[in-house]
């Protein structure tokens, strides 16, 4: 109610923009692209494949009311309430990976043998607030 009184007289379309700031933060928690090549780490002499690797990462603010959008447990909202109402030294919920996919790597071992290995949890595929 009071927000409406303060709200500047704007057209309905801007009104939805105006309300959006209360619903979802501007830079909301989401998955971001990141590609690296093992030659940047100077590992391409012993990591033969893949040449490119996209581990991805999660970044952004978590909305105050985190519902099903992130699959967050209720604890996330509780943590937010603690941060806002009780103790600001308790951190706000963080934007972190929720799911990963594996990566196959072909490497040369110190004894000169060659190994093909599939590693779990090497590429972030989904983010959540926790």
């Amino acid at each position: 109610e009071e927000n409406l009184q303060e709200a500047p007289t704007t057209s309905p379309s801007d009104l939805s923009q105006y309300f959006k700031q209360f619903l979802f933060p501007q830079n909301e928690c989401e998955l971001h692209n990141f590609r690296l090549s093992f030659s940047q780490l100077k590992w391409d002499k012993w990591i033969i494949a893949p040449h490119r690797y996209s581990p991805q990462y999660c970044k952004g603010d978590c909305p105050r009311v985190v519902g099903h959008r992130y699959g967050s447990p209720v604890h996330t909202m509780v943590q937010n309430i603690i941060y806002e109402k009780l103790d600001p030294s308790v951190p706000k919920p963080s934007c972190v990976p929720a799911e990963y996919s594996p990566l196959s790597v072909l490497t040369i071992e110190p004894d000169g043998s060659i190994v093909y290995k599939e590693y779990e949890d090497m590429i972030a595929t989904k983010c959540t607030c926790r």
Partner: protein
Amino acid sequence: PHYRGQVISDKTSGLLAAPEDSELNPLLWLPKSVRHGYALLPPLLKVLSDQGHQNWESEVPRLQPDSRALRYMKRLYKMSATKDGIPKANKSHLYNTVRLFTPCSECKHLHRDLMKGDVHSVDLLFNLDRVTALEHLLKSVLLYSFDTSVPNSSSITCMCHLSAKEHGFSGQVCPSISHSIAFSLHFEVRKRKWVEIDVTSFLQPLIATNRRNIHMAVNVTCLMGEPPQNTKLENPINMALVPPSLLLYLNDTSEQAYHRWNSLRHKRKNPVRPRPRNSPRGDKENSQGKRASRRRR
């Protein structure tokens, strides 16, 4: 477990810089069976602890692999993973690790008994130190690469005889178990470069006893044409057999390894339970029972 949640402080960089065998090296805190399993971990820890200005490569000298072996493994990689390294969802391949060992150089001597035509026998010693206790053998293969252009023939029949060698007390070598495998190779001219001889049943007992060194003698006799007309040795083919590599298909059971069946199970997180087939009454009771329990909940 030692590293999860542990902040890599600058203190540990000294530790991590320690040579692999010094007791300061935190990797030695990992159980031996697990240490090699994390092939990727040590360099990752090193980069994190040294702020990455040293490249891992300069730390650990690596013997260069055989170029043919490298070519084969690159081909295996292309069959098993996409360009970006995502494992292909190939139900048939249960392995999540494939290790290729080339025989130790000092024992690679080929002697050909020219009297009997083309019998290739070679003494092979493979060092399996890199195989961890968490890597379980699924299949093992001797990998021959044919270096000469095979004559224009429809097929070649080979007989391979293996015998594992034990080192006796007085150091003399005596064959402990032997094994013969016959295999026929059907070549299109110059197409087939690799021959895989399955030696799983032969090697299983040796690898199961966690043997670090496998010492074996391999005799290969190859003849042109189909049996039985090729029984005599008068038409052996003259091909330069390069000493074979040993290929181990393994299932790494460590936490860091990708478990295909696990991900399949993960995908089927909530399988739809089949509704119990019983009388309508049963159904009614069932649903009442459910409603009551839901109300209670």
